[in-house]
């Protein structure tokens, strides 16, 4: 039904475009000069027809369910039910009215269900009537306003401008959405677990929070040794460090080679080939790390008499490093190519070889940009999820031995939230607190890196 109304409004909008234009043509036919092209009169009428109706339509869609719920539950208000029970009653009522209810049917429920159906049909009918009335009123108004001495281009363009502006707010809304989704759960989490314990505690064992009996009240002292995030912070930065140990030398050297030495032909083929590495989904890297690299390292380790876990930090970090190579190589390539030629020429004129020029002149000149690209790579490594989930362990060990398994912030979020979550549970909230940490860390890394890169660009432009 909602879909029908929606399509109806859209179709009516299109037809009113033609009517508006037709009226404009007929005015034109009487040799009167119009103030805008005829199609603007069409747009004008279409906007008048569709927009008020859409506003009513969406307001209705937002508020109808909660108002209906309020009316239904007002019958139960004096019986002393808890909020959860009231919600349950409402759900039961809804499923009974749809005829899908299989539990025990009480008379209360039956009357509620009847009332629910009744209310829904009243709401539906009044919605249709209201929308029709609005459409007719606004079309008549808009149609009347179409005349030779009325401007239509300006209002239509103003409207379009408003639409464009609203769309550009999407980015801000997304950021606000991220902050909102994280902040409430995080605050709730820190009400139970002191911030100090979270940041400096050395024991992370969220599974312990799972065995809690839900009927008992929350006892914060229970969690004193459960949510100490030091092992996962350490694990995150350790794995990122391993990744950067692989990515920086290879990425930087290939960036330099592509920018300074490679012939156009080599560049033409090698650059896109290396960038393929950036396009491969991370879950594929994760599978590769778990199936091939992990066992391979384990075999080598056993041959050398070392004890290597099949899910080692080295495997995850190494494969993550391979993934980050193209980011560093293409960013540093860009940075190096934008160093002005005059610096190179000056160095060659003093008799320096190419590599000396690169090491002593170009590299220092490009350093801020390179640091920026490395920081972007680090932020990528910190936020990477699937490789760690699949290739490194899920238990948070506090270790700096690359041959053992460690866990990261992202992996712990997945471990906690995979499957069913109960909001309001400290374990779920812990995941959001971790998400908040991750968001803040990557955000500051990004802002810093982007600023460095931007400053650098301005220097040579």
């Amino acid at each position: 039904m909602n879909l029908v109304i929606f399509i109806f409004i859209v179709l009516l909008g299109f037809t009113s475009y033609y009517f508006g234009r037709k009226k404009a043509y007929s005015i034109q036919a009487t040799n009167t000069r119009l103030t805008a092209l005829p199609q603007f009169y069409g747009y004008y009428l279409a906007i008048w027809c569709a927009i008020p109706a859409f506003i009513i339509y969406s307001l209705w869609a937002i508020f109808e369910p909660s108002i209906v719920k309020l009316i239904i539950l007002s019958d139960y208000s004096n019986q002393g039910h808890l909020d959860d029970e009231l919600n349950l009653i409402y759900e039961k009522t809804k499923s009974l009215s749809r005829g899908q209810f299989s539990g025990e049917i009480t008379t209360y429920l039956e009357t509620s269900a009847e009332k629910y159906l009744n209310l829904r049909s009243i709401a539906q009918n009044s919605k249709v009537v209201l929308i029709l009335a609005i459409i007719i009123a606004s079309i008549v108004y808009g149609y009347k306003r179409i005349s030779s001495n009325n401007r239509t281009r300006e209002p239509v363009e103003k409207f379009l401008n408003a639409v464009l502006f609203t769309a550009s707010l999407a980015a801000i809304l997304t950021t606000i959405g991220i902050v909102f989704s994280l902040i409430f759960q995080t605050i709730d989490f820190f009400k139970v677990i002191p911030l100090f314990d979270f940041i400096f505690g050395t024991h992370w064992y969220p599974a312990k929070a799972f065995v809690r009996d839900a009927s008992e009240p929350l006892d914060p002292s229970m969690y004193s040794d459960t949510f100490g995030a030091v092992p996962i912070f350490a694990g995150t930065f350790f794995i990122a460090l391993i990744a950067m140990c692989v990515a920086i030398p290879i990425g930087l050297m290939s960036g330099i080679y592509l920018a300074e030495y490679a012939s156009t032909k080599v560049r033409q083929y090698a650059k896109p080939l290396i960038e393929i590495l950036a396009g491969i989904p991370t879950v594929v890297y994760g599978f590769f790390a778990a199936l091939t690299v992990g066992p391979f390292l384990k075999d080598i380790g056993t041959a050398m008499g070392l004890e290597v876990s099949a899910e080692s930090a080295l495997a995850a970090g190494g494969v993550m490093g391979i993934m980050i190579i193209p980011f560093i190589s293409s960013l540093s390539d860009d940075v190096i190519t934008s160093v002005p030629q005059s610096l190179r020429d000056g160095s060659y004129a003093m008799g320096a070889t190419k590599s000396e020029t690169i090491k002593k002149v170009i590299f220092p000149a490009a350093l801020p940009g390179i640091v920026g690209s490395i920081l972007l790579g680090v932020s990528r490594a910190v936020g990477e999820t699937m490789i760690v989930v699949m290739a490194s362990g899920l238990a948070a060990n506090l270790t700096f031995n690359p041959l053992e398994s460690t866990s990261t912030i992202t992996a712990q979020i997945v471990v906690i939230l995979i499957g069913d979550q109960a909001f309001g549970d400290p374990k779920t909230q812990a995941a959001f607190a971790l998400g908040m940490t991750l968001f803040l860390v990557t955000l500051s890394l990004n802002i810093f890196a982007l600023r460095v890169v931007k400053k650098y660009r301005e220097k040579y432009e």
Partner: protein
Amino acid sequence: MNKNKEKLLNSRYRAEKRFQFYGKSAIFLALLFLTIFIFKIFSTGYTAFQKTWLIVPVTFDAETMYLDENPSKEDLEDADYFDLALQTMFNLDKSASEKQQNDLKRMVSYFFEREIKRELLNDPSLIGKTKDVYLTASDDLDQVFKGNYPRDLPEDQRRVTDYQLKIFDQLVEQGRVESKFNLSFFTYPDSREAELAGIASSFMGSIFSILVCLVIAFPVAVLAAIYLEEFAPKNRFTDFIEVNINNLAAVPSIVFGLLGLGILLAVFQLPRSTPLVGGITLSLMTLPTIIIACRASLKAVPPSIREAALAMGASKMQTTMHHTVPLSMPGTLSGTIIGLAQALGETAPLILIGMVAFVNTIPGSPLDPAASLPVQIYIWAESAERGFVEKVSACIMVLLGFLIIMNLFAQIIRHKFEKKWS
């Protein structure tokens, strides 16, 4: 003195050579990783496109199926095929003990009953006759036949018993084992049994998510880019929007998953595990990518075009909508496709919104629970059974195939339709 100079010069040249060598080996290493990677995926995955069938003679005995004489189509539809199917397998070795009979039954997939039924429904005249029927082999035998299974392990360490191997080898000798193209990998939904698992459900899930993502992200991103590039005044607020976009492009994908979980599921109460929620989450993630691509291609349209339109009396809005935007479309479209390709490979946010649930039906709309291709890879990669390893690789091949096609498409649009100014 001269000798010293020469020495110094030589060492400088050697340093030059070494430096070049480092550069070359870095590129070589990067390409080597890529090659190993692709080789590994293909070498473990190509076998999944073959499926092993056991050809077993089935005697369609009316009595075993409890059928009367001249059964109607409905009777055949409702008949009990289980006993017949069991009997068929037991007939492979008439002297089998009870335990061995159980082993015989486990040599085929649990679809064997359905496969026999389909055969009879296709040709009801088979009642009372014997016909060779193709039955899907169990995944362990499938792996044995493909040579992926070490046969020399002690019996208690492998899932195939010696007895099953003996019967299987007899069947191979009689030419009753056949390997054919694995069509069911593309048409079946996910399953707990490796031999019956297919990518149809996750494939449709991916398609629906990407469509939802496209429908939401593309218009919003293009409108936002037009505003920022053509209309926005230079002020603090515009700068703030720009900073936001640049930062969103670098926020880890899992944070978007938390957004989907905390807002879309918890606040708006959208249905869990559905491509609708997945698509919305992914669209928020691809939004900055498309905005950045669209702005870049709007910027590339030379000012002379705008000036010409304005000089002819077009309004700012007409200039933008009739001239600038159409000229920037190739760049925008190719940026959109690249953004969608990224979204197609995304896993972590979808796991958080519950698209990781086991779905053994093919979703028919964005409101049905579904997985997606990358999530399917994750689910199968976490399964212990050997049969899933090749499935994962095959699924990766399908996913990579789609990504390559999308990227090629983006390249073609860019090179074919984009106007070169200057």
